[in-house]
């Protein structure tokens, strides 16, 4: 049994563990134990990885394991991690862990909720550990389906509509994706002439340029839909607004990162020539995403919509930086994924907690919360500051790495786009401060809200956990940037 597969096996065991559960306490216990083990494993993996690297193991992927799964089509279950996957797994583990605490009181059908959530986690972990394109896509789809039920059953507002929209758009994306993946599979000429799904082998193989030109847009758009690339981002505001707290957290925090990760792993690394030729089209689109998302956020009145548009902007920056095709910008992109994941999860957790108390997310109905729930409010300010890129919190290091990296592109076009993308830091400040000023400051005029209470212990665990992570990355960015940039061979 290899170490990495534990990430998939433990959630499966959790699923079995949920079956005999009879009451909410047992369900919570199983969920917390499982999430804690996963978090422990992720941290262990990080240290094992660092240890291997220190010992001088310079292989592309570490801890590899490979099982032939369906011989007729040469499909393997193959796992392996490099620095990027390690970081992403850690991110997922943190967010699943905090997500469990954030959905402590989910009603009704608590057990079913956690079952689907765990299934989602299986998809996410499986995606990040796979190095076989087919299993990657398999896990990708596994992660998408539970989303439909989670939003459709436990959501709020127009939940059926949002769930359907989200699922259909993402499925539409994955239709492109599967075409692209199969195309890559069939057009890659490996050394021994066999057809392979293994990305390491395909990376060595030569894919003819005319095929690359076809498959790059397919795979990039396929993953780009999940990465909320303009104009395929509209599932995100509706989806996030309707989803329950933990699902928003997981979705914005981890699932959207699947998009960025996939773009990097498959579209860019396997089709590098086409990537450099066609990058400008997608740079324009993602550049638009960055500014457009930020401007879109200014005029929203629903907290979750604001945050969803802000995610469009920040995730746009991820894809934007990946397309700059240089090591620094890509490192920045991965750091931005990590940072945005934590930050946005924190945001959604806080919004969920505020919504759980006030039963409204409309900023026009909220004011003066600072006096009523100081803990949540201060945390909200911290999340906001992280989002607008305050030094010392994770957003800053990621954005600055991206900007410096992107600006070092020799081409004038790219540099001008970088400057335009930079301007998002101002617009971000506008919408963040607008919200903070509106809902937290001032005097509370709503009698009902005066009676509300501050966070309780399980909410504090979720929030503090995320804030600590955001701060650690922001204060000591060196280790994380080293792990990531060590794995980018560009």
């Amino acid at each position, binding site marked *: 049994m290899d170490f990495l597969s534990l990430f998939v096996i433990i959630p499966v065991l959790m699923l079995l563990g949920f079956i005999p559960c009879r009451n909410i306490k047992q369900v919570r216990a199983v969920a917390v134990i499982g999430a804690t083990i996963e978090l422990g494993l992720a941290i262990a993996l990080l240290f094992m990885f660092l240890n291997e690297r220190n010992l001088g193991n310079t292989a592309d992927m570490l801890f590899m394991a490979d099982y032939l799964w369906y011989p007729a089509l040469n499909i393997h279950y193959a796992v392996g991690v490099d620095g990027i996957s390690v970081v992403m797994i850690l991110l997922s583990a943190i967010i699943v862990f905090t997500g469990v605490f954030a959905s402590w009181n989910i009603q009704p059908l608590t057990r079913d909720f956690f079952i689907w959530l765990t299934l989602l986690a299986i998809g996410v972990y499986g995606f990040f550990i796979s190095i076989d394109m087919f299993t990657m896509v398999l896990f990708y789809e596994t992660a998408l389906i539970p989303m439909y039920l989670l939003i459709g059953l436990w959501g709020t507002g127009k939940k059926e509509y949002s769930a359907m929209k989200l699922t259909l758009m993402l499925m539409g994306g994955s239709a492109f994706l599967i075409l692209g993946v199969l195309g890559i599979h069939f057009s890659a000429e490996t050394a021994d002439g066999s057809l392979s799904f293994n990305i390491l082998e395909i990376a060595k193989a030569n894919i003819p340029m005319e095929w690359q030109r076809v498959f790059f847009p397919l795979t990039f758009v396929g993953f780009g839909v999940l990465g909320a690339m303009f104009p395929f981002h509209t599932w995100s505001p509706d989806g996030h607004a309707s989803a329950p707290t933990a699902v928003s957290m997981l979705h914005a925090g981890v699932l959207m990162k699947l998009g960025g990760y996939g773009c990097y792993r498959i579209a860019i690394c396997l089709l590098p020539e086409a990537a450099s030729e066609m990058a400008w089209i997608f740079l324009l689109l993602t550049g638009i995403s960055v500014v457009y998302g930020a401007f879109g956020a200014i005029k929203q009145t629903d907290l979750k919509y604001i945050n969803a548009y802000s995610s469009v902007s920040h995730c746009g920056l991820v894809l934007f930086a990946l397309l700059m095709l240089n090591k620094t910008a890509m490192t920045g992109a991965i750091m931005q994924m990590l940072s945005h994941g934590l930050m946005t999860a924190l945001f959604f957790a806080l919004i969920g907690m505020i919504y759980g108390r006030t039963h409204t997310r409309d900023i026009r109905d909220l004011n003066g919360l600072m006096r009523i729930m100081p803990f949540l409010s201060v945390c909200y300010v911290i999340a906001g500051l992280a989002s607008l890129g*305050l030094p010392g919190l994770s957003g800053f290091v990621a954005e600055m790495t991206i900007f410096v990296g992107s600006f070092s592109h020799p081409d004038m076009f790219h540099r001008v786009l970088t400057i335009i993308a930079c301007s998002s830091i101002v617009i971000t400040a506008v919408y963040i*401060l607008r919200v903070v*000023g509106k809902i937290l400051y001032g005097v509370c005029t709503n009698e009902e809200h005066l009676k509300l209470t501050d966070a309780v212990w399980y909410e504090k665990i979720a929030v503090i956990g995320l804030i600590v992570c955001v701060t650690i990355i922001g204060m000591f*960015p060196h280790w994380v940037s080293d792990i990531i940039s060590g794995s980018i061979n560009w």
Partner: protein
Amino acid sequence: MFTYTLPILVIPALMFIFLGLMDNKFKPMTSGILGTIGLGIVAILSYIAAYDYFFSVGLIDGIYQKIIAFNFEWLKITEHLHIDLGILLDPISVMMLVVISTVSLMVHIYSFGYMNGERGFQRYYALLSLFTFSMLGLVVATNIFQMYIFWELVGVSSYSLIGFYYTKKSAIAASKKAFIVTRFADFFFLVGILLVSFYSETFDFISLTNPENNELIMKTAGLSFLGISVLSWGMMLIFMGGVGKSAMLPFHIWLPDAMEGPTPVSALIHAATMVVAGVFLVARLFPVYYLGTPEVLTIIAYIGAITSLFAAIVACTQTDIKRVLAFSTISQIAYMITSLGVSGLAGHEGLGYMASMFHLFTHAFFKALLFLGAGAVIHAVHSNEMSAMGGLNKYLKITNITFLIACLAIAGIPPFSGFFSKDEILVAAFHSDKILFACLYFCAGLTAFYMFRLYFNIFWNDNNKEYEHTPHEAPFVMTFPLIFLATLTCVCGFIPFSHYVSADAMPFETHINWAIASASIGVALIGIGIATKMYFKKSEIPDKVADTVKGLYTSAYHKFYFDEIWVFVTKRIIFEGISRPIAWFDRHVVDGFMNGLSWTTNFVSQKTKNLQSGLVQDYVTIFIGGALVIVLIMILI
């Protein structure tokens, strides 16, 4: 050698985290005392560092060395570019350490009295520590990116302190405005950093500002963009950052509003320290400006002069005492900026640079004194408006005297400190550009006028006013800083500043140019004289004067409508013109397209599903029809 400077940064940072986390678990006094003790240690260490630097180790071979006391790589970005955090000691950073820690310590002490009983006293001290930490980090930055980091931190602490009274609408708006306006300027700063570092391949100040064989200047030689050299773009953009923080035109609008914060905060942040960050930035990069882009330096000088004149005129018409002081701050900082703009690099040519730093030094003390004095007045009468004051000399003896000293200093009357530094600036401007000199000279007169207008309106001109509660002098914790700063204001003009700070780090001699000095004293006295005539006692003259120049008066009273222009830009253009259409476009066009897709699918399937009637006869009809068609085709072909 200078490793003991590390606690200067670490203590306030830890204090912030500690006080911030404990917040209400401490009694207010405990937080205050802890913060003050921490800052006391910082101040003492700064003085020791200054003494060591200037009198024992700094001067080697007649040049003040740049000493890196501490440095580590914080984030590696590319092969060449890495963000370091460290401590760079050179004359200006050491001088700033002294200024910041002194003023900050005074403000810490003063706040015991001023903020006594305020809700959030602990938070206040935590934020003061954060601010002090960020400002100290800014001035000792070893590289431009560290400066940017602390620049942002300073902005955030300023934001939180302006919005300290977060239940007040105007305070929320002011804090938001301050942050966003400076953030907008920082965007240019960031782009400037990117541009410059792209060519220089380093963030490091020492290599950026190396006056000989400057790599940055060599590498950018001959490159231009839109007809202007790349280096000019870069340095201009970097200066824009300074324009934002130092509240020069057209980004000055946030500073008057920032007066919504507690008065000691205004003294510390918006008078003495943070707002001079822009001056400090230009001074830090001065060799690049002078050697690489002299034309930018000229622009800087003119921006400074225009701002100075503008702010001085506006200050004459304001009635909120803190706003008068705010505009006077803008005007004085613009003085420093102009002075840098006219400066040269070597020896006596570098007079402007030295004068600018000297003025920064003296201004910090007397402006802090003015603000703290204004705080004492506000503490006594519970209002910011001049109309609520008058005749306070009877009640606030100490405040009166210290405030007078500060007013004389800022007006440029010897032997107070402002005279010396202002004189040097005027001399520097006189030798460089007569227009700038005329501008600054006129401002000097205006400064004397509006400061004494303020002074008389507060402390004299009693107008037979009756106070509901008899105003009483502030407690000792508040008067002590006043006295201390007043003493500094009296003595620090005699410091031979050019022995310590100069553009090329080589000490030189300056002498007072008595011709210009007497002219400036003259204009100051005229200003004071007019103010005395108009405001010492209640008189009709001010209204008459206001009536004769009604247009000018009204527009100055409305700060020349800059706020309205900015509001128009943000509200009408950005909010209504860009943001709203984008939100609409997103909901209706982009999303509408997606919804349209699903609607079309739905529609088509609704229509086609009627083909499946479930009646066998219908199917058979189609089957037979189809068979007949096939037969026909086969027959015909």
